[in-house]
């Protein structure tokens, strides 16, 4: 092996990657171990199913926002988009009015449209993503209230409610949807040109532009994927609580972003993975579930969750 300087840097990077990838996994497994020792009901198929079902909504959102963060943006409008699309789905999901596919289609269209607006404002309008999506957070909440007249939309069809409540071969449908989205997203990020371009744009936007990548289109697509997935989360949520709630999903974007960060995705873009995000989602889910099982007071729960987010970031910084 020749003796030039980059080599130590490489191994340093490799070590960092090791910590990044496996540090979090180790922490996750440790927490699971502790919880299974402390609580008899924790380590069981039934509880695992419950955790997976509980995390699926945050999981879908976190995967969506992973796309945006990898490409160097941020989306704060997720929670409101969940509410708005949930209401839209519910409005079209009264029994005997429209086929189920219309309810789902309208909600997803609404999500894609919001993502498109976010993306265009960021790219054509050159407004900071933080500001654009902060504005959209309020707009989408307003749209949700407007569409629902401020009241929950109830009386939804059984077929619609089956999405959130039903299961196939013992696996809850939200979990199946979450799983499908994990597979599809990893595929897009790792196996397609779009995926490569997302990383490139987030890694160095100028260089990506100079390389002839359609930077604006890539960014708009990332916002559309994000809001489109938020719409799916909105459908799952509305169906799970059997109502379209205009004030549902408050602050959901924060849980989603927290999961992404715990998963090692860099908020400055260009680095990250779906696997990491899923791990972050599971970690948050397991902690929520475990602390409930232990009947830890909600005051402590908040403190513990916050501490874990910061600890994750620390592991990430560690070289």
């Amino acid at each position, binding site marked *: 092996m020749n003796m030039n300087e980059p080599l130590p840097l490489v191994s340093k990077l490799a070590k960092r990657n090791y910590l990044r990838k496996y540090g979090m996994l180790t922490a996750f497994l440790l927490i699971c171990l502790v919880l299974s020792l402390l609580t008899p*009901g924790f380590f069981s198929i039934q509880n695992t199913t419950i955790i997976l079902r509980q995390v699926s909504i945050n999981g879908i959102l976190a995967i969506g926002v992973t796309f945006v963060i990898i490409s160097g943006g941020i989306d704060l409008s997720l929670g409101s988009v969940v509410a708005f699309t949930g209401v839209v789905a519910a409005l079209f999901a009264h029994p005997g009015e429209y086929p189920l596919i219309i309810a789902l289609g309208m909600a997803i269209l609404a999500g894609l449209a919001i993502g498109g607006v976010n993306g265009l404002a960021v790219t054509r309008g050159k407004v900071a993503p933080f500001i654009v999506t902060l504005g959209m957070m309020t707009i989408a909440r307003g749209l949700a209230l407007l569409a629902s007249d*401020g009241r929950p939309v109830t*009386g939804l069809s059984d077929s619609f409610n089956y999405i959130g409540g039903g299961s196939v071969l013992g696996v809850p449908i939200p979990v199946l949807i979450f799983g499908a989205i994990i597979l599809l997203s990893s595929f897009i990020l790792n196996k397609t040109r779009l995926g490569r371009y997302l990383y490139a744009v987030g890694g160095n936007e100028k260089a990506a532009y100079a390389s002839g990548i359609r930077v604006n289109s890539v960014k708009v697509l990332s916002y559309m994927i994000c809001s489109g997935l938020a719409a799916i989360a909105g459908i799952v949520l509305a169906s*799970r609580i059997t109502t379209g709630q205009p004030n549902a999903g408050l602050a959901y974007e924060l849980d989603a972003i927290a999961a992404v960060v715990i998963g090692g995705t860099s908020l400055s873009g260009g680095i990250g993975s779906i696997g990491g995000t899923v791990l972050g989602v599971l970690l948050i889910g397991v902690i*929520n*579930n475990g602390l*409930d099982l*232990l009947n830890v007071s909600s005051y402590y729960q908040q403190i513990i969750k916050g501490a874990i987010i910061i600890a994750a970031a620390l592991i990430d910084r560690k070289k």
Partner: protein
Amino acid sequence: MKLFEIKINAGFFASGLLALAVLGGGCRQAGQAGKPVIGASMLSLQSEFIVKVKDAMEAEASDRQIRLIVNDAQRAAVTQVQQVESFIAQGVDAIILNPCEMEASSPAVQKARAAGIPIINVNSETTAEPDGFVGSRDEESAEIALQHIASLLRGKGNLVIMHGYMGQAAQLKRAAATKTLLADFPEITILAEQTAEWDRAKAMSLMENWIQSYGNRIDAVFAQNDEMGMGALQALEQAGLKDKVIVVSIDAIDDALRAVKDGRLDATVYQDADAQGRQAVQMALDFIQKRDSVEERSVYIPFRLVTRGNVEEFLK
């Protein structure tokens, strides 16, 4: 289309009149047209219950030929105080306040009183004493719900409690009343209590987790509002445990009423939004007309237990 134009013209006309009135140097701008004006600052128009109160206020106002200006404080006491200040500046005849917080909304009451404009609190209280109060005693709702649970359990069993957003007046009062009432039932044990932040999805997750750790030992669930009650109910149904567990919650929202009718939810407690809204407007009008000679200055509208037996009268 035509209608729309007319509306616009009418609005234009009205604002023209108002402008004329201002130019004419009238002493009280808002009350010019002869109709009394009431300003209302509401806790949050994202809350279904508050929207119902507001609807009732608007209905009563139009019955009585009153102009009602409704502002949404969006749960922020600061906003609320500002809204009341601007009502005072506009010179409204009376103010209805649906307080965000006990302490932080108090300055609104003090300012209105200092300005000599009658102020009526609706639905909840502030530390500063208003001219009038229309509402219900929050404690009563929890008492009614728990009495019902206790009687269904025959005074014995395991209970889990879902709290609202920790630290809010409704959560605090309902929790305090719970403690006092359960003192009379030593054989009812609280297995666990936790917040689900008034939220249905969170309540569902919480209930699932409880089922996991307490399984068949749970005999009853008391949720501080119907949203959480419905969430608990759905989780229990999915776990196939609903037949064994009693669920009672508060508010009587449409979904909960339907669930009571279908025999899924054991009971909810009806808070009379309609009566609160209408009586608040009536009291405000009393103050405008009679000033200091108003006799009845606090009206408590009772809560009512809703079970399968009487649910029909609440369903519209």
